[in-house]
């Protein structure tokens, strides 16, 4: 076994895995507070990446666009919650999950209608030839993705542990009604959670687009992988989502290199099934106490 190849595979796997991790984080964040799975997480990101594409076409410099779109993605998430989900809040988490499946079609259809279904070019945040050190090749976009994932993770943890709104979010995820009784404005919290998830989706989309390419279906696979990563990490655990994403990225690379690229997805899924059999709450999951 060639160690150089092995380390290169791990490094590029981490680059892809970081994208899975960011999207998985968005899914997990919503699940923790609403117990609903957001199947449209990836496509929210796809939609915002198209918005970024339009802004780039207006000749606005890309780093500025990046910041604007991150902010817009937050607003987009809030809008989805305030504009649509708010009205079905009384429904079960399952109903909300189904609604997000509908969003997939709406976002894909809208994006196709506005921007067309053909593939669009999308610039990387950091251009240039790859960085080489001791034979290990590191794409610049992968470096950006890894750093972003790391920074977001730190911000996320600090936000939840240290800020007032973060504590309120945790209170709502513990027990929505108790939080309500304690004076937490649950509807604001929901909007915030969706906003932050939207932001993560937008980031994920803009980081994925230069590596793959910008089109309506660009996030379909990533959404699935992120969902798998979330399951691997325990579905309600924030470090679990990050760990699950990175592990999955590396795992896929190793399987497709040493076994077969056709078996990449099936084997990843089998590993996850095995993990869940051994530890039903995932690698990082806490035991769930079902509320009565």
């Amino acid at each position: 076994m060639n160690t150089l190849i092995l380390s290169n595979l791990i490094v590029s796997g981490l680059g892809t895995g970081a994208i899975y991790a960011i999207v998985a984080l968005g899914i997990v964040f919503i699940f923790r507070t609403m117990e609903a799975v957001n199947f449209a997480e990836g496509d929210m990101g796809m939609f915002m990446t198209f918005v970024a594409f339009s802004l780039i076409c207006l000749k606005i410099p890309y780093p500025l666009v990046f910041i604007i779109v991150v902010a817009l993605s937050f607003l987009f998430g809030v809008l989805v919650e305030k504009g649509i989900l708010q009205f079905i809040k009384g429904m079960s988490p399952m109903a909300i999950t189904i609604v997000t499946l509908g969003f997939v079609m709406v976002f894909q259809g809208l994006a196709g209608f506005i921007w067309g279904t053909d593939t669009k070019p999308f610039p990387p945040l950091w251009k240039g030839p790859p960085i080489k050190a001791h034979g290990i090749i590191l794409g610049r976009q992968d470096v950006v993705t890894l750093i972003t994932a790391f920074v977001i993770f730190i911000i996320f943890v600090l936000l939840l542990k240290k800020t007032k709104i973060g504590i309120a979010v945790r209170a709502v995820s513990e027990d929505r009604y108790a939080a309500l009784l304690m004076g937490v404005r649950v509807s604001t919290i929901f909007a915030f959670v969706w906003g932050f998830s939207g932001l993560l989706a937008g980031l994920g989309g803009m980081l994925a687009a230069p590596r793959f390419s910008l089109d309506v279906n660009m996030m379909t696979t990533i959404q699935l992988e992120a969902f798998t990563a979330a399951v691997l990490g325990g579905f309600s655990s924030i470090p679990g989502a990050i760990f699950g994403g990175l592990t999955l990225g590396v795992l896929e690379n190793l399987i497709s290199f040493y076994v077969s690229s056709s078996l990449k997805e099936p084997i990843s899924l089998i590993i996850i099934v095995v993990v869940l059999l051994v530890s039903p709450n995932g690698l990082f999951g806490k035991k769930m106490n079902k509320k009565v």
Partner: protein
Amino acid sequence: MRKKKTLLLVVSLLLVVALFGTVLTGCGGNKQSSNNNATQEKKPILIGGVAPVTGPAATFGKSTKQGYEMALEEWNAKGGVLGRTVKLIFEDDKADPTEAANAFSKLINENHVVAIVGSVTSSCSLAGAPIAQRNKVPMITPTSTNVKVTEQGDYIFRACFIDPFQGTVAAKFLYNNLKARKVGVIYDIGQDYNAGLAESFKKKFESLGGQIIAYEGYPDGTTDFNTQLTKILDGKPDAIYSPNYYNDDGLIAKQARSLGFNGPIVGGDGWDSPDLVKIGGDAVNNCYFTNHFSKESKEEIVQNFVKKYEDKYGEAPDALAALGYDGMNIMLTAIQNAGSTDGEAIKDALKNIDYQGVTGHIKFDENRNPIKSAVILKIENGKQVYVTTINP
């Protein structure tokens, strides 16, 4: 209530009229065909044209159709074929084999065309060919490269070269012109086209004395090619052969460059799309592909065609337009040579044709595939530049 009833009545009336309408026109069609020969002599010769002008291959279909129309107009301006004008009856198959089969049946049974030029995609031509063969209507597909198309019978011809030929050409070009000795191959295992090109390339390149350092397949729908490319780049290749469709090739080029590979990447006619550069950007510089036609060829016949086409449609012709033009011209020349609109006579004339087209000199081999040359194009700053012509 009353309104509803009236509405129902109107709708059913409309339905009845519509039904009878179709029956009536159907009868009209039959009457036309039972006309005697004397009146038919003065009538135009009907040629069926099939191409997907809507659907997933719409840009391919549009170019091809414009090629058909231009060829037809030129013949009519010169006085037509056998002293009669020629008329195109065009059907859109939407790149869907079922639609293609319907289009072929309609052209043959309702319009009674004497010959068919089409369709564009191999799967559609494969759906139409058996129908043409059964009815003994000669057919030429301008662009379907899959070997099986002309195997459907002796009435089926094509104007383009077949898949294995492109792989052979690419191997010769890489070995002789680019002096590559070690090449890695990456291809989609789920597509006949890609796998066919990869296979014939490998065979030829090895027989020339070159070395295939890695032969990497990937499943249909892959967007992350890092592992395949890592394996290929580990063997330090002089070049990469990537005979896929433009979406994949653009991504492969981009990801290969981000892994530090700066050598040439070579592909087939699946690269011929403006989207290749859109997706690949700078990464597709120093890339080459084999194709049917180059508008930059110095040959006079090509330059005349390019000028006329640009004047008429306001855009430069691509390979599909050129093949559509050649396909129609071959068919009309065959009818002229046959001296009759009889299917069998046209078929025999096609077999013996010797035609100089814009996509090369065309003669058919015993399998009704043309023996012709291919061009190599290079991508430089987003533009296709003619490099050389390689003969079979």
